[in-house]
């Protein structure tokens, strides 16, 4: 664990230097998610005037609650998509030769990919997270059953996101071309996980896709705990699902790392595909 903590510190510094290489990063950290949030809000706001909307989607009838719903979605998406970006950066290390140095070192491979994802998450998401908290406070829409639920919300975002990041890193570490991740996980994740629409409003086959994305479960817990006043008991199913999914992702990461390293030792190519 002591060595894993050192790897965590090392990756935190590396991510900080890589991500904050330019002040323009503030655009991707705050301005870009804000623009997407505003676009979604003003696209959905006319729904409030739709007859019968209060029965089908009560939240949409209240502009402030709608904004809070969308802000939680944007926050969750920022968490998870920052890990897609981090995995893409990690795959580039294969081309620059530093990936081989990571494999030359005695550092635990899982610790490296988890630390890399965690560090990227913190660096990428803190600014928008601060903005979201300020917005919830100003809108006065937070309805929490117990103060401990804040911790539950935090963990329900953090743990699955880190597991998701470790999984993506471990898979993409061996890929020559990671650009497909953006196509695969940008708009589809935004849509299928219920970032801007409630999951119940989506067709069954999209809900099925969303169910294997950890962002879907995280958003269910975050919205349930922060906006609907649900307690641990109410969210037990979602929390259990998230725990299982996080465990599966971490196990898959371990498997991919072992498979990938063994293949690299056999073929001389640090790539899986």
């Amino acid at each position: 664990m002591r060595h894993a903590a050192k790897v965590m510190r090392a990756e935190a510094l590396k991510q900080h230097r890589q991500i904050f290489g330019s002040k323009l990063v503030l655009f991707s950290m705050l301005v870009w998610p804000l623009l997407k949030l505003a676009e979604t809000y003003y696209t959905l706001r006319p729904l409030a005037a739709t007859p019968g909307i209060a029965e089908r989607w009560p939240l949409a009838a209240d502009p402030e609650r709608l904004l809070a719903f969308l802000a939680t979605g944007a926050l969750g998406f920022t968490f998870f998509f920052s890990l897609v970006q981090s995995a893409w950066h990690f795959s580039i290390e294969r081309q620059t030769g530093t990936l081989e140095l990571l494999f030359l070192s005695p550092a635990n491979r899982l610790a490296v990919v988890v630390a890399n994802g965690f560090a990227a998450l913190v660096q990428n998401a803190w600014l928008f997270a601060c903005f979201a908290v300020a917005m919830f406070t100003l809108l006065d829409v937070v309805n929490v059953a117990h103060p401990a639920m804040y911790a539950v919300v935090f963990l329900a975002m953090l743990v699955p996101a880190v597991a998701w990041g470790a999984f993506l890193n471990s898979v993409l570490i061996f890929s020559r071309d990671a650009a497909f991740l953006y196509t695969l996980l940008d708009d589809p994740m935004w849509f299928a996980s219920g970032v801007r629409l409630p999951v119940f409003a989506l067709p069954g086959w999209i809900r099925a896709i969303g169910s294997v994305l950890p962002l879907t479960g995280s958003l269910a817990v975050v919205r349930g705990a922060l906006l609907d006043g649900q307690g641990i008991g109410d969210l037990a199913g979602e929390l259990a699902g998230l725990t299982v999914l996080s465990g599966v992702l971490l196990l898959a990461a371990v498997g991919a790392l072992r498979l990938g390293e063994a293949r690299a030792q056999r073929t001389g190519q640090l790539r899986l595909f």
Partner: protein
Amino acid sequence: MIETVNLRKEFGAKVAVDGLNLSIPSGRVTGLLGLNGAGKTTTIKILATLLRQTSGTVSVGGLDPVKQPHAVRKRINLIAGGERMVYARMTGRENLWYFGQLYDIPTKVLKPRIGQLLELVGLTHAAGTRVEQYSRGMTQRLSIARGLINDPDYLLLDEPTLGLDAPIARDLRKVVAGLAEQGKGVLLTSHYLAEVEQLCEHVYVIGDGRHLAAGSPAELMAQTGCHRTVRITVTNLSPQIEAAALAFDSRVRLAPGGVVELNHPDDLTGALTTTIIESGGALGGLEIVEPSLEDAILALSDRSLEVIA
């Protein structure tokens, strides 16, 4: 000591390394030479645990890299030339600190070691500068410091001076020689054969993954028939002098410009000169060319190609 026995590595149908037996003792720089594609880098990567051999055994200080990779990685490091294997957006000091964390080096040890290594490679003045602002030579020197961050018992150097300016390469050679004096086992591959000749007490020559020859640079030269060449310029070369010179030894050759040339394992300079003068020759110049390791490697490679053909 690093030892390999019958080391073999296949990539599909291609055999990159075929039955290599190597011994790389501590306290010595051992050379591994061969033309491009000879299997040098593959061999080094097997020793570094980055590749796994198809058959044969490897022992690194008594450890098996296949069964004990973690322990082996703590005791070795690899420095490859010509590649940017450090992080450009971090400073030189930060890069060393980063890799120090990966090797789990205690903070009390790491801090002074980073300072020592930066001084060793002449980068103390640029310790706080981002690597993206370094020259190629500075980046390569930082890579060398990175390779020493875990104070490895065995250092694998794959073309470490590739692309470096002559003064920097010379300084690096001093560093490598110093590491061997400290008791580290060093394996060096380089295209600069003068460098190998200067640093290595023992050299392995491989071709197409197979062992071709081994020995000290002098032994390799002797094995391949590379000897000192004497070139005597005769200003009044006549048929009579030519006949006398050719009769002196069957290895005497006549070259354009009135040059009499002799390549021989023994030092016959004086005797040949006397023969030429006694036959009426007037000396215009005398040149003695010592054999080089390059001649030996080329000779070995040519023989290897002949065998393959």
